[in-house]
């Protein structure tokens, strides 16, 4: 950890992510106003010392909406990273270890990867109806194949290592081989890949919310605040501006974290991941 923090980029990334995550977690205490309660007296207010980031067309405080919106966006992206990590990890492990099913599983993954990810996610989210769970399912399906590919690659490398051969030679069972020898070797690329998926999911969730297939209003997400602000771009550009800055901070931070982890854990991984 110390060695990681000594890398400037990693430290900056951690800082950026920490700011947004802490602000989102503390939304209940930090947010000065109710994020969903309309107040028509303060419509489209310019940022001032009461409403630090201004108000939207329903008179809602933009800062409060961003804090609560970041909560929803972070939760969705985190679950997507975990779910696609577990599903993709399992598929990759099975595919890399049992060569008989490999061809079949990878053909399916190739097929899913052939879709432009966003298009597939939008179609899926639209099919299943607008809700937070739907968005998670849609994004997890769209981003599982990449993780499966990375994991499969890592398993293929690990299984041909001498120490795995040796363990097999002394009679270790499959479960033990995978658990003790193969999985630990795959942990690093998996973690790095899922950091990137986290970042991609933040962007993708914002897109889904922006085009109107995200979690339904009035609960804000970072993308839906931008969508709201779009209609008032002329009179009140600040509404769309600040949630985008929050997204950019978060995604840039996660990308820096991913790069830092990748370089620190194994420089050779540059080829496998991403």
């Amino acid at each position, binding site marked *: 950890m110390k060695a990681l923090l000594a890398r400037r980029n990693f430290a900056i990334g951690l800082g950026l992510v920490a700011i947004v995550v802490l602000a989102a977690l503390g939304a209940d205490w930090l947010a000065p106003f109710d994020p969903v309660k309309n107040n028509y007296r303060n419509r489209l207010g310019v940022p001032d010392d009461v409403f630090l980031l201004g108000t939207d067309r329903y008179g809602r405080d933009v800062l409060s909406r961003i804090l609560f919106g970041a909560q929803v966006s972070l939760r969705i992206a985190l679950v997507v990273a975990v779910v696609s990590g577990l599903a993709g990890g399992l598929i990759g492990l099975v595919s890399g270890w049992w060569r008989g099913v490999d061809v079949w599983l990878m053909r399916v993954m190739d097929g*899913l990867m*052939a879709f*432009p*990810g966003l298009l*597939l996610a939008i179609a899926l989210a639209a099919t299943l109806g607008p809700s937070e769970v739907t968005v998670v399912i849609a994004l997890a399906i769209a981003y599982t194949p990449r993780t499966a590919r990375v994991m499969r690659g890592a398993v293929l490398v690990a299984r041909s290592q001498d120490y795995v051969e040796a363990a097999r030679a002394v009679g270790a069972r499959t479960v033990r081989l995978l658990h003790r020898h193969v999985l630990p070797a795959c942990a690093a690329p998996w973690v790095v890949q899922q950091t990137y998926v986290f970042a991609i999911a933040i962007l993708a969730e914002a897109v889904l919310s922006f085009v109107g297939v995200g979690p339904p209003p009035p609960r804000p997400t970072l993308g839906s605040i931008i969508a709201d602000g*779009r209609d008032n771009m002329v009179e009140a*550009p600040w509404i769309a501006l600040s949630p985008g800055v929050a997204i*950019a901070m978060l995604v*840039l931070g996660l990308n820096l974290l991913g790069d830092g982890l990748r370089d620190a854990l194994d420089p050779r991984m540059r080829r496998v991941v991403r």
Partner: protein
Amino acid sequence: MLRLIIVRLLAAVPVLLVVSLVSFGLTLLVPGDIATEIAGPTASTADVERIRVELGLDKPPLVRMVQWYGGVLHGDLGRSVLLNQSVGEAVLQRLPVTLSLTFVALTIASLIGIPAGLLAAAKARRWPDQLTMGTALFGLSLPDFWLGLLLIWLFGVKLGWLPTGGFVDPGTSFVGWLRCIAMPAGALALTQLGPIARMTRAAALEVASSDYIRTARAKGLTEPRVYARHVLAGSLVPILTVIGIGFGLSLGGALVIEQVFSLPGVGRLVIGAVLRRDWPIIQGGLLLTTFIFVAVNLLVDLLYLWVDPRMREEA
């Protein structure tokens, strides 16, 4: 050569099979009754029945699937529920907008990204490298649709230089087309620039340490020439790969960018269909866009052979 092309084409078959299965399967996943949903809350039972029969929803899924595949193989993707147009016609009519947007964006991204990546590699670990790579990572982290909104605000609203949206056919007025496409393509290009610059740098660094580069230097070529001619030539395969992937990402990105700039492309068609539950359009749009993406990647595979003679010999 011909054998390789055939092998690549055959490899695309299972991919297209999965893609079409998913596209068809979407309608099976819809919770509730599609016909009722399309007809709307005020429709009579007879109207709902009529739509059900029109869409073939009164038949069992397996029959529908066979019919759908039969149609697809004949180039018939069904009719739009709302547009009074066949799906193929509706998509093909809007495809040039989306493709030209994607193409212009990728061209901009390559024209800036490749030289930037080469520069970064030539000055590795010094300030030009850190600056370009920092910018690349930053661009990669911005939501493109948000960037589009900011561009509209700056160039469209504040400065009034460019139209805030809409589309002019290049046949009618090339300058008008350019003015309409400049901002959306720019916003889309920025997100593609990062991956291209990063990949160029990585590939160029590897190539730069090879023997033939040392030879090029030894015969007295200047550094810019070494990079522009020899390092670039050696790095083209990974660069082409990342541009090919970028094509798919841009297609997805164009979807949203079209929405932001009110461009009449496939993205607006599909998202409009999503919001109004026009299933044939959603299926057809998904299928056709993905087919194009697969075809482009096939093309990229074949470009490798042209770019790298060594691969031709292996083939």
